[in-house]
């Protein structure tokens, strides 16, 4: 009996080790350990074994079974690993082939810059007021200290819709609406489309501005400077500084042009800054008392500053866009270049 078992064991091991695949291994397993398997047959034949020998034979059978199962398990593991390897190998790909990328879209570069500006000013406590594109002569000019025969009206070519209504030439018009509706403290920015009758390589009849207005007690030119310093650092970079120089707007007094140190050359002079080291980015000033008083703000108590930023100008500077017209043509080759 012992020899028989020994034989079974040897043959089983040979067959297990000879099995080239999991399927074959499964067959081998059934042939030995299955219901009709050889070893199972031995167990079934236990009834023919004399009782006194049964414990011993039982032990031999179990030992044989365990040995076979051990080897089976090992071989299973090996073959499974091999099968997996083969599967992986079969699925080898060329990782340099093109990707399958979900279609993307972008916000317009102007919207992107507008959002960046809004984020900066919102964090400084500014609310966002969007005025209307169609304005009255009063809000666009007269209330901004630019009466009918004022020479500053010649500075801007205005599109008129009627004697009274026009397309706003500046987001400054929003200042007046805000001051009429709200008492100080006022901190608002007013981004939006503005219109001027200009149409050439560097001018578009429609463009975007963002007006800013602060009115509270004790606001000074130094506060304007401090806020602009902070703003330009956040939009153009930490190393960028501002320079104020005198200018003229009817609704501010004093009025300034604000230049920033060239963020491309660091002020040494390059093509972007036309060799001057400075780039003109916005106009600003202390709000003219006539404007405040016209809106019922007590100028003995309150003062303020205002500033106006050309959004396209910032976008063109930031991204190096060379033609303003490109921004309004919805050319996908342009729009897909600037990621938010």
């Amino acid at each position, binding site marked *: 009996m012992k020899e028989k078992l020994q034989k079974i064991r040897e043959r089983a091991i040979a067959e297990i080790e000879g099995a080239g695949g999991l399927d074959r291994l499964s067959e081998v397993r059934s042939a030995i350990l299955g219901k009709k398997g050889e070893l199972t047959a031995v167990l079934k034949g236990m009834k023919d074994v004399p009782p006194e020998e049964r414990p011993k034979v039982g032990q031999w059978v179990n030992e044989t079974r365990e040995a076979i199962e051990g080897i089976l398990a090992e071989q299973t593991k090996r073959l499974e690993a091999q099968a997996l390897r083969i599967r992986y190998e079969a699925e080898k790909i060329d990782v340099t082939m093109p990707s399958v990328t979900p279609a993307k879209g972008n*916000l317009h570069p102007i919207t992107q810059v507008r959002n960046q500006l809004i984020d900066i000013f919102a964090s400084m406590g500014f609310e966002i007021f969007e005025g209307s594109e169609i304005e009255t002569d009063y809000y666009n000019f007269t209330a901004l200290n630019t009466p009918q025969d004022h020479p500053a009206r010649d500075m801007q070519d205005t599109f008129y819709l009627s004697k009274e209504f026009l397309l706003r030439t500046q987001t400054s018009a929003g200042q007046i609406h805000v001051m009429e509706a709200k008492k100080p403290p006022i901190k608002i920015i007013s981004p939006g489309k503005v219109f001027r009758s200009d149409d050439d390589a560097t001018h578009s009849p429609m463009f975007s501005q963002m007006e800013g207005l602060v009115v509270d007690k004790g606001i000074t*030119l130094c506060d304007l400077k401090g806020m602009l310093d902070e703003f330009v650092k956040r939009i153009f970079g930490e190393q960028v500084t501002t320079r104020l120089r005198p200018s003229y707007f009817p609704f501010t007094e004093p009025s300034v042009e604000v230049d920033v140190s060239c963020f491309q050359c660091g002020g040494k002079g390059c093509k972007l800054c036309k060799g001057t080291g400075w780039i003109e980015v916005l106009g600003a000033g202390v709000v003219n008392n006539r404007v405040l008083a016209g809106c019922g703000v007590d100028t003995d108590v309150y003062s303020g500053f205002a500033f106006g930023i050309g959004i396209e100008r910032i976008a063109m500077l930031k991204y190096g866009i060379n033609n303003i017209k490109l921004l309004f043509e919805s050319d996908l080759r342009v729009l897909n270049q600037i990621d938010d």
Partner: protein
Amino acid sequence: MLAPLSWLKDYVDIDVTPKELEEKLFSCGFEVEELIEVGKDVSNVVVGLVKECEPIPETHLSLCQVDAGSHGTFQICCGADNVCAGKKFPVALVGATVYATAKDHVTIEGVMKIKKGKLRGYESQGMLCSGVELGLNEDLYPGAGYNGLLVLPDDAEVGADVKPLLGLNDWIFDIAITANRPDCQSIYGIAREVAAVLNKPCKEPALDFTETEVKKDGFSVTVDAPELCPRYIAHYVYDVKIAPSPAWMRRRLSLVGIGGISNVVDITNYILKELGQPMHAFDDSFLQGNAINVRRAADGEKIVTLDEKEFELNSSNLVICDGKRPVALAGIMGGLNSEILDTTTEVMFEAAKFMRDNIRKSSRALGQSSDSSAMYAKGVYEYTTVMAMKRALHLIEELGCGKVSSTHVEVSTGNSVEPQEMKVSVKQVNGVLGIEVPETEMLRILTALNFAPAIDGDTLTIQVPAYREDMDSYQDVAEEVIRMYGYDHVKGTFMPTARVTAGGLDLRQKSELKIKRALCAAGAYEGIHYSFFSPSDLDLLRLPEDAKERHAIRLMNPINIDLSLMRTTLAPQMIHAMARNQKRGILEGRIFELGNIFVPKELPLTEYPDERETLCVGVFGEKESFYTLKGMAQVVARALGVTFTYEAGTRPFLHPYQTAEIFCEGEKAGYLGKLAYEIADELDMRTQAYVLELDVRLLSRWYGQAQTFTPLPRFAQEKRDFAFVVDKGITCAQIESGIQESCKYVTDVQLFDVYEGAQLGPDKRSMAFSVVFTPAEEEFGGEMVEGFVKKILKNLEQKLGVTLRA
């Protein structure tokens, strides 16, 4: 404005370089747009004495020996007809640069460098020059207009650089003057600023003259329109001898772009440039009735101006008349009937203040302008009229071209031309700036600007010159102080006295941004188009005459017809954008725009129109379909947490069978559809295009809906699939709602397959739906779901004739 350095030096001792002066002017508010170096292209040209001059046989050339002083003596071949021994001419040495002229010897064609050369076998070391070759003309230097060599004075130093001699060492500042400073639209006005910024005195131009006893008896000036002419000054000059003006005056006028005409006319032009006061000179012998009358023109009255153009006038135009007829279009141009001629012997000078707006409007309305009208449009002060008349009379004497009579008539409304006192608080001035400007600095600056300041305690008293009408309050004083004190003294502070405010986007702004971002995430690019479009865009859309989109606001002064209507729909510009991309070879894409349309309440406008935020989406390309665009609409619905429903619809510019109305929570919110083929063809589109418009203002009602959490189902959901056979006229939406309404446990219905085939018959199709049942209170027991199914099938069959597919 052009200001030559040499002219400015008449009034101010300028001891800084032109570049330094440019920077100083910039710092105090006068941007020099261009600093022009006169004679920049001319170098190494010196005074040469021709010692010998022999004709070269059989040519027009002469062989000259030219003494150039310390530079040496050179042999030069010269073709000019006026070359001769013993005279001095400009000689360009070898290596010099001068202007190259065309064959006509007049037209400048660039700059050339003088090299050693050989002419007809004769060596030539340099070139004798004409005036044109040095960039001169007859006005800039007498004799420079001659088509031959420029003859230099006999006392010119041989070998010396010709540039100082010829005025070629000058600089011209082209200065931008802001609208609040018309007093600086003149050389003298700028000189006042230069003096202030350099802390130097400013010398007033000479104004003295001697009146003779001669009088023009009975001469009168009346001003019938004082509201348009607050001051009019006339002065009579006799024994006038018309001749060219002197070289110095012609040179200066030429440097600022004005050609010389005659002494009397040049004087008026000179004063326009020097003082910023337009003047006019009438030939007095042509003035009838011994009178000047300033009045509004009669309707239909006519005048012929100096340039021989005739104008028909009306009462908004101001005219200067003699005793009988108009002799000048006030402030714009004189009349041909009283023009200064070579034969003029008596002159009536005019210096007047005309109102800015009237001159500007007349000039525009008549389409007639001049340096004079341009100056009036910028602003002329009454102060200057007085000064200018004195200056004109002085120049008449200085030029010796006439005698100053004692007939001087001045009519004014009584405005002062004396300085006005103004008192402000020093604290308030500093309060504007946020810094303390030292009192001594404040006084120094205001003195330099001719404000004659005095400080007593907190009170600053200044005398505002009559040419500074812009000075109005302490804010203006603050500006004057800081622009001279220097903006670099302004140190940044961060609103230490201001209160804290809450900032950020409001709900509408946030929601619109959310919509935009959702569309970007769905593969669309944001576009921005003009707020105005073309009437032809409405025709492109095949909109009927009474369509509401045609009720659009018209621009009164559009750039052109294509930009003349405020848009009432975003669709046409989107359609054009898709066509434009295709023309440029981009054959698929998704674009959206969120912008305003303009809906007038009535036309012409009497109140603000409705500016309605509107969304337009355009998709084009072979991969797109009605349903991909519908997906974009769903993206918007999802972003806002609302439900859109769709019904077949029509638009004149869309496919008749692929168009839908969009409803948001049951309200009409927009449309979508495939662009009609005839429009696609008209625009040469190469692929199919779809367009959608949504009334975002309407959608704003659902902005910011509270988002609530629905607990996960506690019991297992059941899912059943059905394949129905349906009449083609029955819509998906009908079946969906038929299923929904049959059973309250239905939580989702999805169409997953559509099939049409011969075995179904031509009028039928098969639609397969997947339906999810979600138990609410307790688990579905036994045959419950089968019960629901039966009910659904029964309902669909009864209502829609829908049956299960075998």
